């Protein structure tokens, strides 16, 4: 499955929530806070469906965690089935080609080598259906 369109859609959505959004890697000089997303794994064992893992990392450098937690909450959203405000349970439709629904698997608080750096990770499963 070509995930280029999916990547574009997710990047566009994340850009509405955060100013600095990067795919896979951020520049070393990027100002905090910023968001990095990645598709590390996928599972195509299903008929006309592929489960793609989406990782969203939120990085901040501050002693106060309010900003990063607020940003994480906004990206994740309310998880409402009908009208989700964030990534959790969001539907993505790419014209007559692909339908995808995003479900959150887990959220992590990850310690970093540098004490001041705060990091949150949201892990999602993107259930993508190819339309024939």
């Amino acid at each position, binding site marked *: 499955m070509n995930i280029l369109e999916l990547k574009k859609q997710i990047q566009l959505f994340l850009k509405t929530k955060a100013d600095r959004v990067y795919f896979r890697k951020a520049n070393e000089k990027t100002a905090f806070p910023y968001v990095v997303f990645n598709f*590390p*794994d996928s599972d195509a064992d299903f008929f006309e469906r592929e489960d793609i893992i989406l990782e969203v990392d939120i*990085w901040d450098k501050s002693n106060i965690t309010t900003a990063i937690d607020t940003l994480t909450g906004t990206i994740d959203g309310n998880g409402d089935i009908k009208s989700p405000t964030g990534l959790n349970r969001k539907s993505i439709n790419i014209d007559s080609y692909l339908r995808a629904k995003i479900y959150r698997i887990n959220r*992590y608080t*990850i*310690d*970093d*080598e*540098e*004490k001041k*750096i705060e*990091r949150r*990770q949201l892990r999602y499963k993107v259930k993508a259906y190819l339309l024939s």
Partner: protein
Amino acid sequence: MARKTYESRIEEAKKKIKEKPTTALREIGKLLVTAVRKKASRSKKSRTYYLNGKKIIVKPGRLKKSVGYWYRKKENDLLIGSKAFYAHFEEFGSSKNPKNPFLMPAVFENKDMVQSMIMSALKELEKDK
């Protein structure tokens, strides 16, 4: 004596579970530790990590050795993990080091094996009733 392969270990574990199904979690733990150790990278040189501003040099192979399983009797569950302080830097990456996941991929790759072993243990327990 010939070295045991991963496949022969699985067969051995299946036999043990058939004989004593209550040990299923322990057997699964042993197998998963072998799988995780296979995935854990062994660097050629010593690596440097920073923890709370302190520079710590880690010798090659420490991550592999630190992987273990803990069968908790009271909670009746199984934990797979590592005792190394830098294990999560390897698994998730950090601002200074790229990620090199070893735990989650190994466990997910062996998901079917774990499920089949639990199934066989449950079947054996059902027979005993």
